[in-house]
Each structure stands twice: as structure tokens, then as C-alpha cells.
């Protein structure tokens, strides 16, 4: 299987900056005692501080790039794995093409066995006790209902008194109902309430943003009250917004959408101790976006199997909803290859993108962000802030602290480009940019 990862893609896998740095310094022949490769795997022995060198190996055959290193590091992938991949990307001839040594062959065999076992288990898997599970679900919904009723009263009180003095309210004023919503097992509502706390001191226009947010919260409560009367897709949106998540395992049995999925960009945000990674994909044939989320608590590693600027043939299962965006990768049909920008579909103008967004918002009023894949875009820098502009002159402003503008401009060289970004109704956060060959 050809190795097609670029150094940037490999470095994007690093769990943190020090790991990337350490990985880079290991991407030199002289650090390795042995180096080998075949169609299936990549391996090497790296001299560490101990006596025995670390055994580092990567399975290239499965699409999701599995790896293992004998070093004690808890960070994954460790610097040795990154170093091995980087060396492969830059100096392929450093690797002897041979049959793998025993330590590699054993590992590959074990992986094949485990995969076999997993698929068997999956087939055998059944709901442990359907009645008990249904009971638990009913009890939780009752809790949420009671919690939302209480919250509704709190909202009405707030509106009755007016929100003019919102700026002088202590943070606890907003956090108290938020923690009651945690107790009521509605974490999504709790998060909306915590967001409220930041609005009164967010600068000019806070009144508008506050009322907007309160309206959205109210809509969620009203929706849940009459959940049964709503179309199934909207029901799913409301459940998700409230925090009633669907188990991945339940979705895996659903049929997937097979396409050549282009990995456009990635955004990692940390909220308290939870790190959220949003990976945006776009179907080359279906011409539809998809969002794959990965969560990590504390120092746990995020899922690094989807790398920006790559593409893969896969079945994606979408979570139900009126605007299906979130998805999971069900089956991979091809290894990861480097994304070819000339096949990028996308939205011809900002106007067209805005219309798509308006339609999505009409169907899913709690939509927080929507992916834009815009063509013919200029990066514009004016008055110390960035914006994207299309051929018709329509512009979307980038968030105030957006820092990657110069990097994107270095890539575009001022030529009209394809830009992928997240649109939140106010700001467009560019995540990636491609310039098509013919205009360079």
C-alpha cells in the first residue's frame, strides 16, 4: 500500500506541540538502529535512553493507521511513532523493503485476530435487558421534564423583571439553574445556560445576543413539552440539544452513505477539562457535509484517524436530525490518500452558502455552526482583521482573534481559492484553504 501522508498531516496527529517537536528531531536516519517497510507495515528500532532500543511499528493496511511503540510514554502517538512516519514521508529510501521481523509479524497477526473477534462480538451483541433499559429512559425523561418546567418558571421571572440589569448579575445567577439542569440530566440545556453567563459582558450588542439566546432556550423547552407531536427529525434535534445522546453502537447498524469523503479541516476546542475535536468532511459525489466529533477528557488523546487534507472512501452513518451533519465512520473501504483539491465541490458564492445556511437554520433552529466550502475566495486583511470575500464582493468576517490569516494568505498567494470554514451566523472561522493548480 503506498504511503501518502505528508509531514503536515503526520504532525497534525501529534497529541501536543512538544510531541511534534520531539517527533521531528527523531525524523533522522541516525536516530534509528533498524528501519524496514513492506506493503503492510512500517517499523523501526529507535535508540532511546535505555539499553534496548524501542520497537516502533505502524500498520498501514487498515485504513485507520494503527501503531504501537514499546516506549513507556502515555501520549499517543508517541514521538517515536511520529518520528518514524516523518522519516518515511521525507526519506522513503531509508527504509529497507524486507519481511517484517518477528516482533512486527506477531503484532500484525494479533491485530488481525482481534479485528476478527470484534466483528463476531458485534454480531452477537444484543440489548442486555430491554425492559430495564426502557424503564431507565422513562425515568430520565420525567426528570428532564420536571427540570425544564422549573427552568421555564425561572425564564418567565427573568422576562417579567426585565434583563436590563443582567450585567450586574453575579455569575452564580446563571450557573445555579445550569447546575440544576445537570442534576436533571439535561447537560445540553446546562451548557446553553452557562453560555448565557458570558453574554451580558460580551461588549456592545449584548442585549440582542441575550434575547436571541433566551429565545432559543425557550424554543427548546417548548419543543420538549410537545415532543411527540413533532416530526421525528425535529424530535431527534431536540433530544440532542437537551443532551440525550444516541449511542454510537446503536447507529452502527444503520445503513451508511458510501462516498469519497474529503477531510476538509479540523478544529479543537477545550471547555473546562473536556476537549472537543470537530472534523469536517465533504462527500465528493453526494456533495454534502459531515461532522465527526471526538471528545477527550483530561489528558486523554483525541481520535487522530481523520487528518485534514486527506480523503477516504467510507460509509458514514449520520445521526438523525432535520439537518444531518454529525456522523460516524462506519466502514472504511480505502486507505487514506492525500486530498486532491481539484475535485473539491463546494458553494459557488457566499450568497449561495448563506441561502443554504438559512434553509438549515429554518429546519434546525438550534444549529450552532454550519460548514461553508466556498469557491473563488480572497483572504482580505483590513483594519487588523481578516475576512473572506467572493468574486461578487460579498464578505464574511473572520472572528476577532483569528490568527491564521497570514498562513492562509501565504498559501493562496492572492489567487482565488477554495476555503473551508465554520459559519456560526456571525463569524466565519476558516479552517483550510486550497489554491487550484491552474491559477498558480
Amino acid at each position, binding site marked *: 500500500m503506498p504511503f501518502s501522508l505528508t*509531514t*503536515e498531516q503526520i504532525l497534525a496527529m501529534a497529541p501536543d506541540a512538544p510531541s*511534534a*517537536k520531539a517527533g*521531528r*528531531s527523531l*525524523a*533522522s*536516519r*541516525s536516530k534509528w538502529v533498524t528501519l524496514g517497510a513492506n506493503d503492510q507495515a512500517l517499523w523501526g528500532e529507535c535508540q532511546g535512553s535505555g539499553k534496548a532500543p524501542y520497537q516502533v511499528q505502524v500498520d498501514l493496511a487498515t485504513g485507520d493507521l494503527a501503531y504501537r511503540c514499546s516506549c513507556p510514554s502515555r501520549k499517543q502517538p508517541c514521538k517515536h511513532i511520529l518520528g518514524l512516519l*516523518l522519516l518515511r*514521508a*521525507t526519506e522513503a529510501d531509508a527504509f529497507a523493503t524486507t519481511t517484517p521481523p518477528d516482533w512486527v509479524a506477531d503484532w500484525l497477526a494479533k491485530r488481525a485476530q482481534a479485528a476478527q473477534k470484534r466483528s463476531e462480538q458485534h454480531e452477537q451483541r444484543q440489548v442486555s435487558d430491554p425492559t430495564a433499559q426502557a424503564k431507565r429512559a422513562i425515568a430520565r425523561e420525567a426528570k428532564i421534564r420536571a427540570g425544564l418546567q422549573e427552568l421555564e418558571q425561572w*425564564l*418567565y421571572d427573568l*422576562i*417579567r*423583571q*426585565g*434583563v*436590563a440589569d443582567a450585567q450586574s448579575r453575579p455569575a452564580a445567577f446563571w450557573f445555579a439553574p445550569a447546575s440544576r439542569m445537570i442534576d436533571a440530566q439535561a447537560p445540553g440545556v446546562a451548557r446553553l445556560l452557562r453560555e448565557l453567563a458570558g453574554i451580558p459582558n460580551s461588549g456592545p450588542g449584548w*442585549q*440582542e445576543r441575550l*434575547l*436571541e439566546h*433566551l*429565545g*432559543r432556550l*425557550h*424554543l427548546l423547552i417548548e419543543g420538549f413539552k410537545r415532543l411527540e407531536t413533532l416530526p421525528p427529525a425535529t424530535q431527534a434535534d431536540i433530544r440532542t440539544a437537551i443532551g440525550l445522546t444516541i449511542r454510537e453502537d446503536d447507529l452502527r447498524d444503520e445503513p451508511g452513505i458510501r462516498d469519497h469523503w474529503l477531510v476538509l479541516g479540523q478544529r479543537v476546542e477545550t471547555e473546562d477539562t473536556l476537549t472537543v475535536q470537530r472534523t469536517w468532511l465533504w462527500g465528493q459525489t453526494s456533495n454534502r457535509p459531515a461532522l465527526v466529533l471526538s471528545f477527550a477528557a483530561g489528558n486523554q488523546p483525541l481520535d487522530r484517524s481523520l487528518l485534514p487534507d486527506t480523503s477516504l472512501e467510507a460509509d458514514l452513518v449520520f445521526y438523525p436530525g432535520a439537518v444531518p451533519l454529525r456522523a460516524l465512520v462506519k466502514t472504511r473501504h480505502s486507505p487514506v490518500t492525500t486530498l486532491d483539491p481539484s475535485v473539491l465541490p463546494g458553494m459557488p458564492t*457566499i*450568497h449561495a452558502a*448563506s441561502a443554504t*445556511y*438559512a434553509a438549515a*437554520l*429554518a429546519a434546525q*433552529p438550534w444549529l450552532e455552526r454550519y460548514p461553508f466550502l466556498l469557491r473563488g475566495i*480572497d483572504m*482580505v*486583511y*483590513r483594519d487588523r482583521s481578516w*475576512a473572506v*470575500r467572493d468574486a*461578487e*464582493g*460579498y*464578505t*464574511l468576517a473572520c472572528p476577532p482573534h483569528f490568527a491564521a490569516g*497570514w*498562513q492562509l*494568505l*501565504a*498559501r493562496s*498567494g*492572492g*489567487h482565488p481559492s477554495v476555503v473551508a470554514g465554520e459559519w456560526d*451566523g456571525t463569524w466565519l472561522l476558516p479552517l483550510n484553504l486550497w489554491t487550484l493548480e491552474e*491559477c*498558480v
Partner: protein
Amino acid sequence: MTHHASPESTTAAAYGTLWQELIAQALSGTARQPLRLPSPDAPVTALLARLDPAEPERAMLSAAAVLSLYRQAGRLPPVDHTPAPTPCPPDTQPVCTPQAAEHLALMLDNVYSSVLPEWLAAVAAAGQRVPDRHLVSLLELGQKQADLRAAILPVLGQRGRWLATQNPAWEYARPLPAAEELLADAAQLHATWETSDRATRQALLTRLREQSPFIARTLVETTWSSEKADDRAAFVATFATGLSMDDEPFLEAALDDRSREVRRTAANLLSRLPASRLVQRMIARVQPLVIWNPPRSSLPIWKSRQQARIDVTLPDVCDKSMIRDGIEPKPPHHLQIGERAWWLQQLISAIPLIFWTQTWNTPPAVLISAACLNAEWGDLLLDGWTTAARNQRDQAWIDALLTTGKIMHTTEELLHLLSPAQREAHILNVLQTHAEPLQSVHPAFALLIAHRSTWSFDLTRAVLASLRQRTARQATSDDYELRSLLPIYALRMSPELLASASTGWPTDSKHWSFWSDAVEHMLAVLRFRHDMLKEFAK
């Protein structure tokens, strides 16, 4: 925000008003006044009409949800027709290899960052450029470290230079037109001169002075009286390029400048013009103080067995005219020198060296050995001449001063004025004549630091041999300094000798633990340079 004038935008404005009214009511609260929901004639009001005013809080929140979503979905992006900058022209310079780019990434990440200047020079020598993705980091680095700029500019390529024209913070990297081009468009030249930052204007002047010192000087004169002191000092420093007696009146006038830095630079430049009024004044001051006493012999001086002497008298006062000519009345703290000796040393520094050889009709080497005989003021004379040789770039004097064998604190400065080959030969000679292993009191120690280019095989081998001897012995307190300098030596050693540099260390010696980490680190840097330069040999 720009809206098209259309019926829709009129409705949009109406909804805007509706929304603003709702916000105003939300601020004061439904308890104070009954909820009013005005109803313009459009589909959304059908929704609003269904809200029950008997439940004002619920109706208010529902209206907020409806109107805010309606507005958000219908928002028109603003239009901006400002012309975009001309896109970057295609690059003809090839990009460095991916492995070379990885080396750069590592150095930008502060690993082996001391090797960066050498890497940049290697890219430039290969006629290559850096990949687009590293341009921002490199331009930002040049923004912070002005000393790297000259090395960064050649490797930016078309894309990097174009990018620099987009960001005011990277003005230093903007391409400057050739002198002919500048001279061809006087209006443009004046516009550039009047609007650019200091570094650009300084570069502009230097470029101009290579072709036409006259136009450069005229340009400086047009704005001279309104420039800030730092700018004046920077501009007057460019007169070093293409300096001639035509500049003398301007520089002589600059001796009365308000800024000390301007006066000092002007005086320094004038001392390089033997016919300048300043030099004549300096000579008049020194002539009665420094007296040449040739031996009483009929033979020419360099054939005589008797040695000539130089008699020195110190000046009594440092008057206002001396201060105007750039003489500093107080010696710097780090120099162990009396005030009057300091005045004389400065006077000697400001006189063209040719004055001594011509007036006394004697070659530099003889003058230098005569100065060495003056136990009291010999060093003063040598230091003064060294400064003069450095300022005037007088090759004959530099050679003569370096070969006197007397190592002075100014030797390093002179070393820079030699060609790399001359410098190398000089250091190798010092290293071989002093056979004891290298340490901080060794005369070659300071010279090796000052020698900023890559060492030849011979010099590398000689230093390595010396270091191997040193590291086998008991470390003294002097060795801390030597040990701390090994990473710098690693930047200069010839990387082709990596294999032999890696062997032969006294690792079994009981003193080795003092050295092992530093030597390992030195070899790691050398190995990195070896791998790095290999990418350009392809």
C-alpha cells in the same frame, strides 16, 4: 452592511425595527408594561399573531425566538468592492527538498536554532527557496531578529516577498527597486523616501549611494531638519558607501548636530577622508605629542641594528573643539586607561594611517615594533592604530598589527577584516605555535570564537586534536568556559569530518564525566549540520 434597495430590504428594515422594539421591552420587563407586538404585513407576523398576549412572558420569548431566527436566516453579507492586491507572480526559484524543510521546521521550533543562519545561507547558495508554509514563521523571525534579515531575504522567493508587501510589519522584506529604477522616477523616489520606515529608507540610501552618492545626499538634505535623532544617525551611517570629499561639507556641518550619535558617526566618517578639515585638525593636535626618534645611523631604518623609538606626551586638555570633532572626554568604564591617555588614543584613531608611514617614511611593521618598545604608552599607540586600521580597512596595517604577535583585546575586531582564508591561516598559526591544549587562557581561544566562518579540515582537525588532549586531563576552573563554548565550535567545524570527530575521545578517562554531555551535544549539532548540508549536495 450594504443592502440592495429592493422591496425585501424595506421589509428587512421593518423587521429590524420590530426586533429593536422587542429588545427594548425585554430590557424593562413584562411586569412594567403590557407586551406590544406590532404587526407589519408579512408571513412572519402570522406566527406572531398566534401568540397569546395573556401569557406575556411566553409570548415575549416566542417572539424573540421567531424574530431572531428570521433575522439571522435573512442576514445579507456586506459587499466590499475594494480592489484586491495583485496576486503573487509565479515562482521560478525551486523549493528546497522536503527533508530540508523539515530541518527548517525543527530550527524554527528552537531545536538546533543556532544552525539556522548556515541553513539559510545554504538554501540561498543553492538558489532555492523555503516552502510557502514556513514563510510566516520566517518573516516573523526576521521581524524580531534584525540580524537574520539579510540571510532570510534571498530564500523567501516570489511568494515570500509578495506576502511581505501585504503586512506592514514585514516591510523589511519588501523588494527594493534597483538603483537605476529609483533614479529614473524622481517623484516615486521622493514618495518612497517620505513614507517608508527607517530600515527601508536606510536600505534605499545605501542602494542609491552605490550609484549616485550625490542624489542620496540631496535626498537626505530635503528632510534632514525634520528627522528624528535615531533616523538622522541611521541615514548619516549610509555615507560609508561611496564616501568621498563631496560629502565632507555635509559631514563637517553634522559635527554640530544635536544628536551625539550623529556627531560620532560623522566624525568617524570624516576621519576616513585624509583631506577633510577634521583630519587636518586631528593631525595638528597629535603632531606635537607623538615624536619619531630614528636611530642615529646613516643606514635606512629597517636595516639598522639600533631600534627607533616613539616618544609620547599626553594632551593637557580636551577642549570644546576636540569634543566637536568626536573626542569622548570620559573613557568607558571597562577600559583601564587614564583620561588624558584616552584623549590621545582617540586622536590617533582618527588620523589616516598613511599619515604615519608618509610623514616618518617608515613601513607599518617597523612603526609597530617601535611602539612596542615604549613600555608606558606602547599599548595606547597600538590600540589607536588598531581602531584606525579597522575604520579605514587598511589591509597592510591589519596584517602588520596581527603579525606583531602581541595579542590585544582588539585583535578579534581586526580578525573580522581579514578574508576567511587569511583569518584561518592566522588562527592555525597561533594554535600551532602554542602547543598546550586549548583552554580559555590559550591565545587561540578568543580567535576561534571570532572566526565566524566554517573551519577548514586542517583547522577542524587541529581543534579536535587539542580538545581531545584537554578533555583527558583534570578539569580546571578555566574549563567551564571552554566547555560552554563547545556548541559554538560545533557550528564552525567542518561537518565532512563528522566521522572522525565522533571517535577518539578519552571516554575511559576519570575526568570524562565533566565533558561527556558537552561533547555529545557538540557532536549532535555537528551531525545535524552534516545531515542538513547533505540536502543541498544532491
